[in-house]
């Protein structure tokens, strides 16, 4: 499965980059995120409740960040396990470009999904993933706007 999108965020690039690496902000924005622990600058551990069609499960997983291209780009890879419900692994490349006071964010994400999640939810996964991504960036934009206002 692949996802691509481009979003304009009403905040300067540095702020966007910093927020994307802030576990607290991420936890607020990731739909269903119950816990996000930062083990190091590049290692995160997450617990997320996810529902795809008839399958609902608590996924626990690890995310590794590659911040080598800061502040213009970073990439992440991760994997999660939802027990009987299935498992997923994947990664994303994110590119940021300053556009005046705003920032344009482009991402491409790839995921491989296994277990019941893949079997029962296969028709719904693309749609669900898009919806979750949209939700994330909507929340993210809100947080950034609040930061700006504050």
């Amino acid at each position: 499965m692949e996802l691509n999108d481009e979003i304009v965020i009403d905040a300067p690039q540095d702020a966007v980059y910093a927020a994307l690496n802030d576990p607290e902000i991420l936890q607020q924005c990731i739909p269903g995120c119950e816990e996000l622990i930062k083990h190091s600058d590049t290692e995160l551990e997450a617990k997320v409740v996810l529902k795809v069609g008839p399958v609902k499960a608590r996924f626990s997983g690890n995310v590794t960040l590659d911040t080598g291209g800061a502040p213009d780009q970073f990439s992440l890879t991760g994997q999660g396990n939802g027990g009987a419900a299935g498992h997923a692994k994947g990664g994303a490349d994110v590119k940021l470009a300053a556009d005046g006071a705003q920032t344009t964010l482009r991402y491409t994400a790839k995921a491989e999904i296994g277990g019941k999640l893949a079997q029962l939810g296969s028709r719904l996964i693309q749609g669900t993933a898009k919806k979750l991504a949209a939700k994330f960036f909507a929340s993210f934009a809100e947080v950034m706007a609040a930061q700006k206002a504050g």
Partner: protein
Amino acid sequence: MKDEVTREERVDALGGMGCKRKRVEDARFTQGKGNYVDDLKLDGMLFGDFVRSPYAHARVKSVDSSAAMEVPGVLAVLTAADLEPLGLHWMPTLAGDKMMVLADGKVLYQGQEVAFVVATDRYAAADGIESVEVEYEELPVLVDPFEALQSDVVLREDLLGADGGTPDGAHGPRNHPNHIFTWEAGDKDATEQVIGAADVVAEEMVYYHRTHPCPLETCGCVASMDKVNGKLTLWGTFQAPHAIRTVVSLISGIEEHNIRVISPDIGGGFGNKVGAYPGYVCSVVASIVTGKPVKWIEDRMDNLMTTAFARDYWMQGKIAATKEGKITGLWCHTTADHGGFDACADPTKFPAGFMNICTGSYDIPTAYLAVDGVYTNKAPGGVAYRCSFRVTEAAYFIERMIEVLAIELGMDAAELRRINFIKAEQFPYQSALGWEYDSGDYHTAWGKAMAAVGYDDLRAEQAQRVADFKAGKTRKLLGIGLCHFTEIVGAGPVKNCDILGLGMFDSCEIRIHPTGSAIARLGTISQGQGHATTFAQILATEIGLPADSITIEEGDTDTAPYGLGTYGSRSTPVAGAATAMAGRKIRAKAQMIAAYLLEVHDGDVEFDVDRFVVKGAPERFKTMKEIAFASYNQAIPGLEPGLEAVSYYDPPNMTYPFGAYVCVMEIDVDTGEHEIRQFYALDDCGTRINPMIIEGQVHGGLTEALAIAMGQEIAYDEMGNVKTATLMDFFLPTAVETPHYTTDHTVTPSPHHPIGAKGVGESPNVGGVPAFSNAVHDAFRAFGLRQSHMPHDHWRIWKIANELGLHG
């Protein structure tokens, strides 16, 4: 007033062989009064279910059941570690391999059983399953058998030799750790020589995809260990209850007389319910551990993902012929995807079943077949779906090769078949790959079929349609799918057919009651075939008592004589023969009783429908009813009281049913949709016991064939996910998709069978699939299509049209 019953009326009153007797089973089935294993509810019964692997290939690093044990209602969680001290963490398969009962260090396919949660009810078990934490480490996945034979990834580390090499398997040398066996038949050098020197050779790869019989009732069992008297009772969806009893005894160490296996009503089997599954073993262990009855019932996903699948054969073929179309040689190399364990249910000497029936209905002087079995990260199984023993694969292969050869020769495919059929006078026919065909008359059947469908007119219509299509007047093509199949069923002669050393005979035991009714018990078990109806008909004709007065009982190993069960169209050829032979023993004793009662010599009376009559004096007779009473209640010098018989029948040969099928199909080039305009099915199953049941068997088998050819498959993605594990994705035809079928028959009795019957349960599936598939291919023949793999769903048909450039 009529004072005498005519002979015809006496025959009619018996309801014997050849009449359309209504199924005696249907009264209970149509009223919801069937008794299936899940209907069984015992006091204190527990429920067990599996934690299954979401991965297709992974190490199991740990199984933590502590949280699951906290779930209300959960009583126990069994893992391989718990079964190991009992030696039950692995079990033998019916194919000479072994398989894990519960994951022992690794998993080899998605859905594999990892732990067994035992709880007070199904809901608590499901909650318990959610709470078992399993730590997996993913391993590379092999879903392609060709890749598996090249890969460094070893699926079955348990089979590696101490030196890391690949020791021989149950069927001889293995040439790669993921290789299971090579099996050969025929003459390789001679065949290659014929092909090398031939006028014309057609070569093609024919794939028969992996599918599943998907019986409406899934697999399940109830195990109940009575610790006081040491007896284990096991109810379940077993197609071979006696074989299950023996296997359970061998692997558990419980003596066979202390095991009672009962198959109640079974809601469809089709080979899915032949094998021994981890659910049975775990239920038995759980019952022993808890002292309570334990039930295990698969859900639909469990059934489609893990219990016996069907096919998955890659068949590379070469067929050689003269310019005139006379076939001179056939070569086939098959790569057989068996999944993670080799759990087929083939006879021991036939690891690729009877795939060597692949010369089909044709007189092919030289042939060679090799089959390589391969391990992959897919579910085990392989012999299922009304095909058993790879006869379906063989028929599909040869019927596709004939079509491809017809293209190569520029010949009509019906004519090519006709000039190559084995002739009636050639029977018994010795095939190049080792079988002796018992009887057949293919030319008569083919001629009847061609006349019935108006073959020449159909071809003329098709040619016009192609012209119209090219002229832009229509977007629909017409396909004429032909098939003439020859089956091999009725396994089988004990001298060369056994499963795990169990000879493939079958049995019948008859007890006549004093008032002239009877009970007969058989070693087989009906799963919808209507045994209670048809076996009573055989007996009625043999012993002269009405079918309605004969109870047929099967499926309880404490009462039924030993037999190998029902699959592979073997019930009529084997148990049906045993029934007739046991009936003849009854008749032989009845003759002596009748002679005594009529005060004549034994040789002076003869059997006539329902009585013995004095030869030349038909007014002097004793009916079988009278004889039955006398057998118990009259002291007859030299004869024991009673009238009982038992027969164990070891068939001298297999039987070879055949048939001629034609499918006429309209195909919409732009949507890939198809419409079956006509389906004609002529079956020759030898002597016909009940024409109505045969028709029902043919309708059912054809509908399953339609499903397989036109959409049904067990598909895997690259990660080994089963993509079709629910009925949302797995095509099961309903009345909407099912066409009208015209059935017909010829009768060529089997010369070696007591009543000449051959078996019919699988014929429509064996012959139906090539007929449907050939219709799709034939529709596009004029545009250059040679081979396109099944299933021919709308998307794949659309793709054929698209690749042939028919979308403009």
